[in-house]
């Protein structure tokens, strides 16, 4: 289904009612939307639901997207917004149990890595929604401050302050995990 057609061309065709063109956009960007939603909500199942909502909204609102080439940024916006909506509707969506270590016995190194991953996940999910959104877009999606400011519709200075606040909170929460498992202090 995938082709080398540009986003703008696919959006133009989708606006004309082409489901096939929209399908190409969905296949192209589903991973991006799911990744953002997963990091915002912490649940793979919720991320899948959010992705569905995002693309349904995109289909319905495609006519209001004036710059067809800005489809990717628009999707980021929809993904963050839908994730926050989902968290507001059901705060229990943060699935802290999903990443808990099971009954399986793992080698020590693997266990430490899993503990670390779990700690990171908890720390990120404990951030305020607006800070987490900025962090996800910067740390995981690699967007520039300007792009984040456009996606979140906030000034660049606010992007910086949110990122700074989020990182300070994370540093405090993850202090013991900030070195790789192999180099972790003995007292742990």
């Amino acid at each position: 289904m995938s082709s080398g057609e540009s986003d703008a061309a696919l959006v133009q065709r989708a606006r004309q009612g082409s489901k096939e063109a929209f399908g190409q956009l969905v296949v192209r960007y589903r991973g991006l939307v799911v990744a953002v939603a997963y990091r915002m909500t912490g649940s793979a199942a919720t991320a899948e639901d959010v992705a569905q909502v995002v693309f349904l909204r995109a289909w319905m609102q495609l006519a209001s997207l004036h710059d067809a080439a800005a489809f990717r940024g628009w999707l980021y916006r929809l993904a963050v917004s839908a994730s926050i909506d989902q968290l507001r509707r059901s705060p229990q969506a943060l699935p802290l149990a999903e990443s808990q270590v099971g009954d399986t016995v793992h080698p020590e190194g693997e266990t430490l890595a899993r503990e670390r991953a779990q700690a990171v996940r908890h720390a990120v999910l404990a951030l305020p929604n607006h800070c987490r959104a900025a962090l996800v877009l910067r740390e995981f999606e690699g967007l520039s401050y300007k792009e984040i400011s456009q996606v979140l519709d906030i000034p660049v200075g606010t992007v910086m302050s949110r990122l700074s606040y989020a990182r300070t909170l994370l540093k405090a929460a993850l202090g013991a995990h900030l070195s790789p498992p192999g180099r972790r202090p003995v007292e742990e």
Partner: protein
Amino acid sequence: MTGNPGETHVADADSWPAWLDRELCPVEQARVEAHLAACPGCRAAREEWQALHECLAVYAPPPEAPATAEAFWQRLAAQLRPRAAQPDPAPLLTPLALAVGHAIWQGLTVALAALAMLGGWERLAPTWQRLAGAELLSALLRSVAATTWWGAALAEAGSWLSPAIPSDWAGSLRLVAAVTVSWWGFVALAGLYAAWMLLWLRQPSPVRQGT
């Protein structure tokens, strides 16, 4: 943190996160790096932030089979309601078009003010002069010119240099009528301009819509 007394450590500066994210201008970026080369304290701070960045990398969605996206689309497609072809959105009034329009308007007012000041309009358009009168045209030109600061200044200078106050009743009435009509014309134009601007501003930006 070591360093020279009174020196601001980059790790304490507000721009520190921007340096970490490579968002500073090249000059600032180089300045911070030069400081880091000489300051062990700031280097240690950088290592801590770098460790946080690396630590966050473990927070990733679970891997999926390549066919997942296609399957997702098949499920989604069943829920999409078909719709009629929608025309592309009307082209927006871009900031560039606004700027060009504004510049033309400013230039026009200055030109009119200059003409009014020098009395050139009466010389250039004798037909109009016969139809409407020199005072009427002069007042109209001054009113239009007065919509910008420099236009107003030029028109004022013109009124000092070549006073065109009518000496008869008919001329005075024409002047009052001209000023009134042109004033309301200007108000209407300004209203249209403001409505145009509002319409443009109310249009959603490409990434600001659809929430």
